[in-house]
């Protein structure tokens, strides 16, 4: 997954640069490896690098009233593969998710993923870069993705694949222009305060096209099959965002409630693992009447640890982020709620720390079903032989992590918590069933 952002301001007086930076900061949770932005105005300039937005982009030195940017979780080798990607001299693209196939193009194994996209675009469009051409190219792409592209004619297009796997929303900036982004929280941070909903959902298959003379939504084909990513709701998106018009916070509270309904445990305190699992824990506590406590205090910068590629970094993240407050757990039976379990070693670490601080019992509840399979659409799930949920039963995991009991959320409960129909969701990482692309 990647956080993508496009800002289109009609008046050339504007410099979209600082809007771009703060907008990408609002998407930082979607990718922390690289950050990049391109500004288009009198001149055109791409600024990018490895690291967080504030480190990479703080001194832009670029101007323009149109901007496209991305934060990405993928470590890349070559500079040209850092998002946003220059497809050719005219077109620059920010891309969330994964294009798995391009109609009429055969994948070149000697090239990187990004290299293949460039080659596929070149074979489709040649040196051209009209915004209609870019849109047609993405109409020919298969997979699970959302994209924002700008070109040399100061046009911008932002669209979602027909399955709608990856999210995309449209926000407004008064009479000045529009903003497109992965998540609606961007509008709260850089957009105008609109006292209704901050952003409008761009539907699967649709694309928003901006030109100096127009801004219009182009409806996609009539395909009605959908595969909205369910992991967005469990973990990826910010709780203040709306994905497909559904408030993430509501889903996370529903998950907490479902967890409390799936089985009853006698306990003294509910504790959520920061940050994602906090709303799960709040709802669990409200539902059961078991008081909720703040169980952890963090040291250093808030970094999302679960999907960090390297184990040392992950554990460092957990240990610094999650110092257990002993007074909250000493002598108590604890219901510990986390959002997901990938390999289980960070969880084991938390349980160990908590027992060390005097917790009497620890009952682990996970706000998502077991992760058993890879994601073809760009969510970084480790190789299948590393996934604890694929190989061990709940009872066994409890023993491994040192907990008194351990339970996942069921897939059924997850679907109900989200509130969409089963066949509108992609649940591949939980049940190995993938949409046809």
């Amino acid at each position, binding site marked *: 997954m990647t956080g993508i952002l496009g800002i289109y301001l009609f008046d050339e007086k504007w*410099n979209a640069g*600082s809007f771009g930076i*703060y907008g990408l900061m609002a998407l930082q949770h979607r990718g922390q490896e690289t950050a990049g932005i391109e500004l288009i105005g009198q001149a055109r300039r791409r600024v990018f690098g490895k690291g967080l937005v504030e480190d990479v982009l703080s001194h832009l030195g670029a101007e323009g009233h149109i901007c496209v940017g991305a934060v990405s979780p993928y470590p890349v080798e070559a500079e040209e593969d850092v998002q946003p990607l220059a497809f050719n001299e005219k077109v620059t693209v920010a891309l969330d998710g994964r294009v798995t196939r391009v109609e009429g193009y055969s994948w070149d194994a000697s090239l990187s993923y990004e290299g293949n996209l460039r080659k596929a675009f070149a074979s489709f469009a040649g040196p051209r870069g009209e915004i209609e051409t870019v849109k047609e190219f993405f109409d020919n792409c298969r997979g699970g993705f959302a994209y924002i592209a700008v070109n040399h004619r100061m046009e911008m297009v932002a669209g979602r694949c027909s399955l709608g796997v990856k999210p995309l929303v449209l926000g407004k900036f008064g009479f000045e*222009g529009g903003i497109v982004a992965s998540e609606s929280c961007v509008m709260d941070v*850089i957009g105008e305060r609109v006292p*209704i909903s901050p952003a409008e959902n761009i539907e699967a298959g649709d694309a928003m096209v901006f030109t100096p*003379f*127009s801004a219009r939504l182009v409806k996609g084909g009539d395909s009605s099959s959908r595969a909205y990513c369910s992991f967005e709701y469990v973990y990826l998106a910010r709780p203040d965002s709306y994905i497909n018009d559904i408030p993430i916070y509501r889903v996370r509270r529903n998950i907490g409630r479902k967890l409390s309904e799936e089985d009853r445990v006698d306990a003294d305190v509910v504790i959520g693992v920061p940050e994602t699992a906090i709303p799960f824990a709040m709802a669990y506590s409200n539902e059961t009447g078991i008081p909720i406590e703040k169980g952890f205090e963090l040291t250093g910068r808030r970094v999302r640890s679960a999907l960090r590629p390297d184990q040392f970094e992950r554990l460092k993240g957990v240990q610094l982020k999650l110092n257990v407050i002993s007074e909250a757990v000493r002598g108590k039976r604890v219901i510990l709620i986390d959002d997901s379990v990938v390999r289980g070693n960070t969880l084991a670490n938390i349980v160990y720390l908590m027992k060390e601080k005097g917790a009497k019992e620890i009952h682990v509840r996970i706000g998502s079903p077991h992760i058993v399979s890879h994601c073809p659409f760009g969510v970084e799930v480790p190789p299948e032989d590393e996934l604890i949920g694929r190989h061990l039963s709940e009872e066994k995991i409890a023993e491994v992590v040192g907990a008194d009991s351990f339970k996942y959320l069921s897939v059924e409960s997850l679907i109900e918590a989200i509130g969409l129909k089963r066949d509108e969701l992609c649940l591949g990482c939980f049940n190995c069933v993938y949409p046809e692309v």
Partner: protein
Amino acid sequence: MSFAWAALTVFTRRCSWLKVLLVGGGGREHAIAVAFARSSYSPKLYCLSELVNPGISRIVKNSGGEYYVGNPNDPEMVLKTALKTGVDFVFIGPEEPNFHGVPDSLEEKGVPCIGANRQVAEIELSKASMRDLQWKYRIPGRLWYKKFRTFEDAAPYVEEYAESVALKPARQVGGKGVKVIEDFQVYLKDEKRKVKKQHVESIYRDYMKDYGDMDFKILIEERVWGPEYTLQCFTDGRTIVPMPAVQDNKHAFDGDLGPETGGMGSICCGMNLKWGVNDERAILTEEEVEKSVEIVKMMVDAIQLETGRKYHGVVAGQMMLTSIWGPTIIEMYSRLGDPEALNVLAVLKTDIVEICEAIISERLNTVKVEFEDKATVVKAVSPHGYPLSRDLAKGHLVLVHDDEEGIFWASADLKNSGTIKSGGSRLVECLGVAETIPEASRIAERLTTKVSLADGWGLFHRSDIGSEKSLERRIMLANMAREIYKYRERKGILGKRMIWMPGKGLEEVG
């Protein structure tokens, strides 16, 4: 009553040769012409405008009148045309003739005129004077403001204090040059300050450069939010007769996106912007409409008191339901709105000639002005380029498909050859009439395909105006504003703004 009867008999007796001169040639004037064509007095209609409006031209011809091409802002020209044709009265469509004193020179020579004279039209001409007046008479719905003579005067203020503001040319310049900037997030302040300053400079140097008719050039007002609506009224200076409230859509593109235009379309149903004839969901409450009428009346009274002149014609409050005040004046119009005129005139049941006569003879209180219970939706169709690069929108050959039922010509020029060329603004305005706003919207939507440009240059319009989704949002927005202003009303702090200035104490505005 006896006077009214006498006046009416005079008209009735000469009904066969009643003559009216219409000044202006846009969509609004086309709608006014249609209203006259519907009149039972069957007046001969004459028109004076810069371009030849194809729709008005046809009505003029059918009525036995004549079309004159000329400058409608030139009092001499209008007077000459009125005297030459011997019209019974003149109806002025746009605001600029009012600003140039056209009604004044007509009335001086004894030609009755429906149009605000130069002095009372000040409430539209000078947005700064309008606010001065509103504050002087403490009329409700007044926004906090500052006015400046030069860019140099305004710059330090913008630099130091201005936060979320509307930056406006202090004069009405065809609805152009307004920038509304919300400056709330401190981390984006530098960028917004820069643009605000640049825009204030361009108000001074570009938008106001051709207008020497006022001292103050720049107006800065507090930014407010809420649903906007236009409340148009007929007035003879003594009585105010409200027309149904209309909601215009100012953004160029669908979903309220893009630059400000003169108006891309408007909706109307009942007095208070109802969903449908038999559907009471509404953007405004009846009480809010009444309050708005009261505000417009107070403005008319104030400007008459201030100038000693009578207001004869149309006055409109371009209003917003804000969280601070409830009904709030954004701007005043000294004429019908465009496209708002289409909505109200389409449902006007009372004969427009009778209304005009009553305004002229100042007995508007004796006429029962009635409106049909229908929903109306207008959608404007514009060539690409409008509103930011009007030159690109201009001069394209227009093709008309099908009949022109429901089509009102706006910025279009009928050439001698019979061909029609686009002007630089909205080309046509399409009117749908039905039982509900969404139905009327679908009718108007179908009409938008009746015109195209021969050279393939694109046209655009807004398909979302009057849609269910857009109506729901407007009602929701109104509810949010209402909840807050009602709370203020209960607390007795309606319109009051209190700021704690650390070290200085409590500041109160309002």
